[in-house]
């Protein structure tokens, strides 16, 4: 099955939803690791949207990328509450531990402000991090 046909199939699977664009984009990003220009075209055609409209949405969200990045990813919260609980002092160690092998992405708030600093890997949340546990988490990826 070509990629184009698979993306069209993903679109068809979501056709019944009200506002199917974001779920489709997540599904495509999840399966192919990116939503590239060709994927935008296929999705636009399937949903009868313009290419520009789909691109506008894709480019707005951090969750969608134009090219795949196969590295494991850790999302580190650096919003106000986590800053207050010391996340900034841990960033350098996390980045050193990550090197080029792991991608450390900054996010703003994971909704766990009382138990920060927090990070997320995939759907798993990690709370009450300190430098040691953060570095250990990065190395485990």
């Amino acid at each position, binding site marked *: 099955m070509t990629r184009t046909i698979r993306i069209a199939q993903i679109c068809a699977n979501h056709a019944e939803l009200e506002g199917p664009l974001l779920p489709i984009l997540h599904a495509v990003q999840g399966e192919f690791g990116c939503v590239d220009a060709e994927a935008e075209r296929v999705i636009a055609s399937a949903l009868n949207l*313009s290419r520009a409209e789909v691109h506008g949405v894709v*480019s707005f969200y951090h969750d969608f990328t134009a090219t795949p990045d196969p590295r494991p990813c850790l999302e580190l919260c650096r919003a106000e509450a986590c800053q207050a609980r010391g996340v900034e002092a841990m960033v350098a160690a996390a980045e050193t531990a990550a090197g080029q092998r792991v991608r450390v992405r900054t996010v703003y708030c994971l909704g766990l402000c009382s138990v920060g600093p927090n990070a997320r890997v995939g759907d798993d949340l990690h709370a009450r991090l300190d430098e040691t546990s953060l570095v250990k988490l990065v190395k485990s990826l």
Partner: protein
Amino acid sequence: MTYQPQADFGTPAVSSDTLVSLTIDGRAVTVPAGTSVMRAAAECGGSIPSLCATDSLEAFGSCRMCLVEIEGRRGTPASCTTPAEQGMVVHTQSDRLGRLRKGVMELYISDHPLDCLTCSANNDCELQDTAAQVGLRDVRYGYAGADHLGLATDGSNPYFDFDPSKCIVCSRCVRACDEVQGTLALTIDGRGFASGVSAGQTGDDFLSSECVSCGACVQACPTATLQEKAVKEIGKPERAVITTCAYCGVGCTFRAEMRGEQLVRMVPWKDGKANRGHSCVKGRFAWGYANHKDRILDPMIRDSVDDPWRVVSWDEALEFTAERLTAIKAQYGARALGGITSSRCTNEETYLVQKLVRAGFGSNNVDTCARVCHSPTGYGLSKTFGTSAGTQDFDSVMDADVVLVIGANPTDAHPVFASRLKKRLRQGAKLIVIDPRQIDLVRSPHIEAAHHLALQPGTNVAVLTAMAHVIVTEELADEAFIRERCDWDEYSDWARFVAEERHSPETLEPVTRVPAAELRAAARLYATGGNGAIYYGLGVTEHSQGSSTVMAIANLAMATGNIGRRGVGVNPLRGQNNVQGSCDMGSFPHELPGYRHISGAVVRELFEADWGVTLDPDPGLRIPNMLDAALDGSFRALYVQGEDILQSDPNTHHVSAGLKAMDCVIVHDLFLNETANYAHVFLPGSTFLEKDGTFTNAERRIQLVRKVMEPANGPNGKGMADWEVTQALANALGLGWSYTHPSEIMDEIARLTPTFAGVSFDRLDAEGSLQWPVNEAHPDGSPIMHVDGFVRGKGRFMVTDYVPTDERTGPRYPLLLTTGRILSQYNVGAQTRRTDNTVWHDEDLLEIHPSDADNRGINSGDWVRLASRTGETTLRAEVTTRVAPGVVYTTFHHPATQANVVTTEYSDWATNCPEYKVTAVQVLPSNGPTEWQETYASWSAKSRRIMAEPAE
């Protein structure tokens, strides 16, 4: 008067029966409920600073400049998104508002180049104006931080530049593309500081994106980010003149913005009732032909078409012409002479040409290009409704619930109407498309036809009769309407006829190739979906049963009660800017102005008395008959104003033979067109920018054309508008005409034509436009016709039996060719081919379905030979599923292709309108141009030679 952009009220006008009164800065103002505070302020003479608001777009509330204070409310709401309320007390200026605005403005300017003096929008920039309004004197943040100033300009569009370094990301362009044009080609890419306007996707520029170059974004841009290249080159305009577009039948009105006699830009006029401030790529941008190097500015004559042209003075050209015409008339009689009026020229010019033929030449051999486009509309609608015109204004579409588009491709051929239609469809109206091709309206962003009946070309009558069958047999007809407005006995006859089993969708399916269930569903939707409006084009008329199809459409509208109010009706989309007008002006051989038969003594005597001549009581020859008569020697001289019959009329070989047989062919045009290859006299024409007059659009709207520059034609600056040239020719023949201004011609038209009785230039100037009839019964014109009853009295149902065309496919010619237009080109392309519109379409292509292409080993881009029983030509193929298997499609914009070499002489049974839309053809791979194309190209080059000026 110095240059002023058209006033901008910030948010769109609202219509409401409820009025609210409020006070703004101490001034009392009353506005319809729902009007924004911003607009209310503008209506009482104020101007609240704003950047993201403009009155062509819904309020957006993003720029935070238009904040106001409202007594009794907390905070500083945005005036664009706050509706005016009864008793509101608004303050638009205070210390707090001043500080807030200045602070926001500082942020904008901190990331904007400070090159106002050398900026092309200098003094025509809303950012500059707003900075001035808020009193910005300094930017506290400095200019050292990150910015967007180094971004490269996208100059890919031939008419406008996109310079993102000047962009303030107000989204006006994006919203204009979405709301006004409905193409949605633009977006905001990224987020936060990185957000910027993007045409299409990453890697796209404006040209490669889905942009159709309508220019709505350019008009909406408050800065120099999106701006016409011409403004960059020439500078800011100094004055603006309201005039009417000379392209399609929509009849958009524009502000022609001028510097001296140089046109800087065309900006759609927001008060134009046909276009409501919108335009397409042709009207706004494609006017460069007016000064193209190919334009011929001097009169020319030659004894024989084998000679080169000789440049002469007006006097010599007119004397030469008059002598030839007089000699022909003396030898062969008046009926050997004739003329063709132009749907590109004004009403006044058209009227004069038919007057010259009838009163001067002495025959009724006058015809017009409507012969080859909408003559069946005239016939069909006058038989059924009693008047030869569309029933609605364009605004009416905003009240339609079901729109039936048949044989028309509005997004390409009538783009400004298409934008209105798409807006209505996005609001929820349903669409039915009857067309052999998958036109853009069938499916494009946010638009999807509920039913697309992809019929076999040539089976319109069968499809419409089958729809009538469903409506009658399923008892969906509006009996109350029919009993009140129509002749019941005629309806009963018709109903019995359509109810016959042979007209059922199931029986006709093998002929029409439309699935019966789909057709039934479409018929039910049209009959029961609320206000049903029909829009049709040349895909209806240019058939052997064109007139029958028009009558079948009228039958459907009457049977379902869809006539006589807003949101319904039967609307022919006219091809050319003034095709309605040229028909109104008596351009047909059997009709005097106002569609009155020449054989009627009362009417004829009216004209005879006014013109001081005796008129021939017999109808004259139609274009094809003139050509036939030329071949048998009885027709010898033809005056052709502003039309290229060789390229636009069917069976090119026959047209060229007819023209070649004549003794005097006078071509009056801007260019040495294809017809001029067979001409003896060339009279240089004037463009719509160089004349005063009126055009009448598809909604019967008469609008003024105003002269913005002197005519460039004629030696030594003795330029003449086309009406003056016709008058000079008439006077060379001794007619003694003495019109000094086209308004006098309109006065004569009004005097002699009841439907125009109330029309005058003064009224048009004061009121903007009038929709005929304008008479005692309708003193202010008629936006919608047949409101209280049909013009002919009772609406008349006409039995329309489907008769297959004689043009059949067979083993030698197995495919059906149908023809049409493309957005960027217009008709024979005489104008648009001489503009940068060629970047979108520089040759005619043959669309062919992949299965037919595979069978023949054809790929996109290959040369193919397109042959019919009449002739053959070659062009490149484009393999696409837009056309169904068995159908091929091309345009007729380029003379190198000569698509009409292939089309046949079959024509409408009632009006002789040629059957362009159905030709049996074969398509085979080819190596290059046919022998005819090569011979014609060399003949054409030879025929266009102009003798070198003698050395002095």
